[in-house]
């Protein structure tokens, strides 16, 4: 083909949708003012109210299993028909030993399944969704499970410690004629932008401070959202809901405003003030909160962001099947309400920040 492509829209030959979805958020909460109490004597602004903290016996594997079970409860399908179990995270328990095989086995999807772990900072979950759309949409598989889940670690005393949190969501993708919400099209935008990184032998990540803003988060989300809407011929006014990656409260509000969305469109999916930044689970768990209340015909725009950097953008519309499935598993607001406040010392203990050896 000598002509440039008319469109960069990613659209499979068969329509694909979300057949089941499920969130998981652990119960512990560390208020941002408690972090400030320890590190700044209470001075300074707080980027969120509080963040979700995983308990001592939880990890990305256990959390992914619960989210996957919620997704399966809503999907009402035979797990042996799942042909891919893909888990995206930046806190896989092992550097070598996949999370996905343990999750696949726990939910009864093994052995006739593809299993893989994905990684790309905060967008490791949505890239698994993107690939799953292709897997299902090509006819290779009837169902594929894509999960974004994290137990994000913040360096003690660093600005990110206020927000680095635990949680995520699982999405079972399948044929559009079984779906609760159908993908109209998707798009991905990637550049080599080193805003946030962690070397393999380091415990905590490093970041470029203000460089993580305009050249990183904002640039990629704006480009991805605008390209997707342009190629679909849609505008912000066409969507009832929009969900962005949520590293703090201000960034998604600001990028939404820059794109032309109104606060009420962002509100339902904006969970970061009360659960923190759950990294690879962030945009995906925001979407679960939207799906819990969305109605048939509603259009939803989802745009993730992963440092390093890239954004995956998806446009969906809700089908008649959703209302009846919403209540079949624990809703996201119920997970949020299930709350046990802890202090900084307990958090340090639970998250292994006290070196005992």
């Amino acid at each position: 083909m000598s002509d440039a492509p008319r469109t960069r829209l990613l659209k499979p030959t068969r329509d694909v949708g979300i057949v089941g979805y499920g969130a998981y958020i652990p119960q512990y909460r560390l208020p941002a003012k408690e972090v400030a109490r320890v590190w700044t004597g209470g001075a300074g602004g707080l980027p969120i109210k509080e963040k979700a903290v995983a308990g001592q016996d939880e990890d990305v594997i256990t959390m992914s299993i619960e989210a996957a079970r919620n997704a399966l409860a809503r999907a009402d399908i035979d797990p042996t028909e799942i042909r891919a179990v893909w888990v995206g995270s930046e806190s896989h328990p092992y550097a070598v030993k996949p999370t996905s095989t343990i999750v696949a086995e726990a939910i009864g999807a093994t052995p006739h399944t593809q299993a893989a772990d994905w990684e790309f900072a905060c967008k490791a979950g949505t890239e698994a969704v993107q690939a799953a759309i292709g897997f299902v949409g090509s006819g290779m598989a009837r169902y594929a499970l894509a999960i974004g889940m994290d137990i994000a670690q913040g360096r003690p005393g660093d600005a990110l410690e206020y927000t680095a949190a635990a949680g995520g969501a699982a999405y079972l993708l399948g044929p559009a004629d079984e779906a609760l919400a159908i993908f109209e099209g998707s798009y991905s935008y990637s550049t080599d932008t080193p805003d946030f990184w962690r070397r393999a032998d380091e415990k905590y990540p490093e970041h470029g401070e203000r460089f993580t803003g305009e050249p990183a988060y904002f640039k990629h989300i704006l480009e991805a959202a605008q390209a997707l809407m342009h190629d679909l011929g849609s505008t912000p006014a066409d969507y009832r809901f929009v969900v962005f990656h949520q590293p703090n409260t201000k960034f998604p509000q600001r990028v939404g405003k820059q794109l032309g969305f109104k606060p009420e469109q962002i509100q339902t999916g904006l969970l970061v003030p009360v659960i923190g930044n759950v990294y690879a689970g962030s945009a995906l768990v925001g979407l679960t909160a939207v799906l819990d209340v969305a109605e048939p015909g509603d259009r939803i725009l989802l745009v993730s962001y992963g440092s390093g950097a890239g954004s995956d953008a998806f446009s969906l519309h809700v089908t008649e099947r959703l209302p009846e499935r919403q209540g079949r598993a624990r809703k996201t607001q119920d997970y949020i309400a299930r709350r046990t406040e802890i202090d900084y010392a307990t958090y340090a203990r639970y998250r292994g920040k006290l070196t005992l050896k």
Partner: protein
Amino acid sequence: MEPTSLPAEVYVAGVGLTPVGEHWNTSLRELALEAIRAARQDAGGLRPQALYAANMLAPALSGQTHLGVLLADFAGLRGIEASSFEAAGASGGVALRQAYLAVRSGLIDIALVIGVEKVTDRVGASVHAALAMAGDSDHEAVQGLTPAAQAGLLMRRYLHEYQAPADALAGFSLTAHANAVHNSNAFLRGAVSLEEYRQAPRDSDPLNVYDAAPLADGAAALILARREVLAASADRPLIRVAGSSVAIGALALHDQPDLLGLSAAEESARRAFHQAGVTPEEIDLFELHDAYSIYAALALEASGFAGRGQGWRLAAEGQIGLQARIPVATFGGSKARGETGGATGVYQAAEVVLQVQGRAGANQVPGAEVGMAQCLGGAGATASTHIFAAVKP
């Protein structure tokens, strides 16, 4: 070049400046080149015989010393004289002083001053550590005394000694931001309200974040020349460097006998006024040092625009706006146009020149003919003052 028998008066042939901002994708040398090209174009293409670079952070943040040759070479000016000058925040004024002396001596016809700072080559603690080098390393920086802390101490003393209200210095910030709204080269373009100032989080108490200028990247250039080499231009007045000075005081805050006196600024201003044959009343605008709002108040007092302890009143009583008695930060100052370390002194000078040439656009001080620029290094340890005057035809 034969030296002339009488010292040559010095004129401004052209100015150039880049927008101030976080230029993640632009290197130190590229930023400088932008400003140099703009200044040379403004000067009708004059080729300088000497380049005076002003910079304070390149060694620490960019791993780069030897800036004079780097910038001259990158600008296609091999073979000329070139060197870099550093006096912390006064680097710009000090480099301008050197260029002035060279042209004034008659030995250099055309001199280029290029101030450039690229602070975004690093983030985090290393930037703060580099900034603290402007103080006394062995006795201040090693104790953790940063520029913000020095300004905080001075502000606390000032408010106490003169029994000024907590928001006494707000006017400097508000005015700077209001002026930057119309400056497309400014880093921060939004206006700030008194309420926002009052609610702002503290930086180095009692200083709040609106008392502190944002550090960002930028480059500004000026070309000085003898009258004979300037092309005649009907569309703008000739600008003469009427006053030029540098003075130093004590480096460490604890060595200053009169903490709120800014003796170096007072001396530098006195010499510049004397040379130019003007008094503060005849100055139409003052681009003062406002890296921290306390320095703006102290500079007004030290330079004779207000009595001791009264500098804050000029701001509080609306006397520093574009139409007011003594306009300051006319393009936003360090507070809103942006604080560019060693380049700030050159931005100030360029902005004064634009004002007295009537080229300030929406930021024009009506009828400006004589303008003053003053930059400080450290807590006023070095001060450089320049006065530019439009030559009446």
